[in-house]
C-alpha cells in the first residue's frame, strides 16, 4: 500500500520502538526509500531519543543521594519511626 508522509509521522514513535506490524513496517520502509523528508524526520527523532537517554542530560543535584540516605538513617533504626 502506498502511504503518505503524515501517515508515516503518525507511526514514527511506534516504528522506532519496533511496535508496528510487519505490513505497516514494510509500507513505511518503502515510503522511506523515496522520501528524504520522512527519512530525515525519522533519523532526527531517533537521534533525539538516543541523546535524551544519556545520563549526562539529567543529573541528580550534588549530594542528593547522601542527603537521602542520611534522612533514612533514623527511620531505619530498630526503633525508628
Amino acid at each position, binding site marked *: 500500500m502506498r502511504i503518505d508522509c503524515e501517515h508515516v509521522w503518525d507511526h514514527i514513535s511506534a516504528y522506532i520502538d519496533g511496535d508496528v506490524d510487519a505490513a505497516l513496517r514494510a509500507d513505511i520502509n518503502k515510503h522511506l526509500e523515496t522520501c528524504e523528508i520522512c527519512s530525515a524526520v525519522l533519523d532526527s527523532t531517533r537521534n533525539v531519543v538516543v541523546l*535524551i*537517554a544519556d545520563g549526562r542530560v539529567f543529573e541528580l543535584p550534588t549530594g542528593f543521594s547522601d542527603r537521602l540516605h542520611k534522612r533514612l538513617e533514623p527511620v531505619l533504626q530498630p526503633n525508628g519511626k
Partner: protein
Amino acid sequence: MTKAPNAEFEADCIRRILAGEHQLFHELIRPCERAIYFLLISILHNEADAEDAAQETAIKVFRNLQLFRGDSQFKTWVLSIARNEGLGRLRKTDRLREDSLDALTGEDSGDFTPAVLTSWREIPADALEKKELAGLLREAIEGLPDIYRNAVLLRDIEEMDVNETATALGITEGSVKVRLHRARALLQRKLAHKLKAFAPKRGLFGRGK
C-alpha cells in the same frame, strides 16, 4: 511479565529487611533514586520540593514494604508511591492540574507535526560533552506539557517498558504510547533545527570554517 534482572536481589533484600535487617534498605532503594527524583521534579517543578518529596517517598516505601506484592517490578511500585507523594503535594498547594485534568483537557489538543528537514546527520553522544547541548535537551523536555514529559521521562530517560510506565503513571498502555509519540514529536520539532549545529563537520558536506 518479564522480571527485572535484579528481581531476585530485590526479593531477597525485601525478605531480609522485613525480617529486621533494616540497613539493607539503603541498597534496595539506591537503584530507584534517580527515577524517583526525576518523576517528582517533573510533577513539582522545583528542585527543593522534589528532593524533599523524594526523601518522603523513600521513607514511605520503607514503612509500607510489607505491602509490596511483587506483581509489578519493585521500581514501578516505588514510582507509583513517588507519584502519589508528588500529586498529594500539588493538591495541598492547589497546583494540581496534571492527571486529574486529563479527562477534561483531552489529549488531542496541540500540533504534533514534525520539523521538516531534508537531511539529517546523526549527533553523536560525544557531543554531550558540550554543556550547551545537554542544556538544550533539558530545556526542551522541561518545556513539554506535564503528561507528555512524564511519559518521555519514564520511557526514554529511565528506559522503563510500556507496561511498567503505565502502572507507575496510573494510565493505560495505549495512553503511554500516545503521550510518548507526542512528546517525541514535540521534542523533534523543537530541537531538530537547533541540534543540526552539533552535527559533526566533515567531508564534502562539512561546513568547516
